């Protein structure tokens, strides 16, 4: 499912909000989530999961083209930890044996 498919599904499954409003809402939600993480704030969605930042310490890397060693500074990377309901919901399907689908 892509972002535009998500918008279409949300627009189709409720009657109050027309498509363009759903699109703005999805955009605003994702932007607010990005903003939170960019300012070091965690995101906690019960049942779904939580997003936080993990610190990656500085390391020596290599420029793959020139072979030159470069010092890479420490940085933060976004991390997602699925919540209990999502973890269990996704795993139940393993038992049912449904195949994985690639999104188009």
């Amino acid at each position, binding site marked *: 499912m*892509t972002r535009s498919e998500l918008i279409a599904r949300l627009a189709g499954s409720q009657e109050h909000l027309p498509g363009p409003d759903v699109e703005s809402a999805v955009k605003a939600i994702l932007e607010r989530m990005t903003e939170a993480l960019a300012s070091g704030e965690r995101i906690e969605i019960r049942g779904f999961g939580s997003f936080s930042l993990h610190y990656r310490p500085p390391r020596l890397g290599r420029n793959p083209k020139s072979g030159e060693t470069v010092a890479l500074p420490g940085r933060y990377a976004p991390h997602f930890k699925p919540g209990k309901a999502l973890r269990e919901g996704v795993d139940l399907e393993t038992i049912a044996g449904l195949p994985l689908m690639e999104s188009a």
Partner: protein
Amino acid sequence: MALTKAEMAEHLFDQLGLNKREAKEIVEMFFEEIRTALERGEQVKLSGFGNFDLREKKERPGRNPKTGEEIPITARRVVTFRPGQKLKSRVEAYAGTHR
């Protein structure tokens, strides 16, 4: 303080002028749709933010950390999140200003 669904709904109310009930509902449904798609075995790709992928894990040996007893960790399907380029670079900028 962590960002929650309530605060996201508040943001939609402030920013887009949705009424509180609509805002709350769309935030709720946003996460529900993503969860449902993943539960059906569908990958979820939110451009600019990141991808939620599903991975099949084989059974592997594990241990009860309390008793030290060996018990296999059963085969399972798990969700992983791969942040998109835009999210990654926005988050890296945080490190720059705070270290």
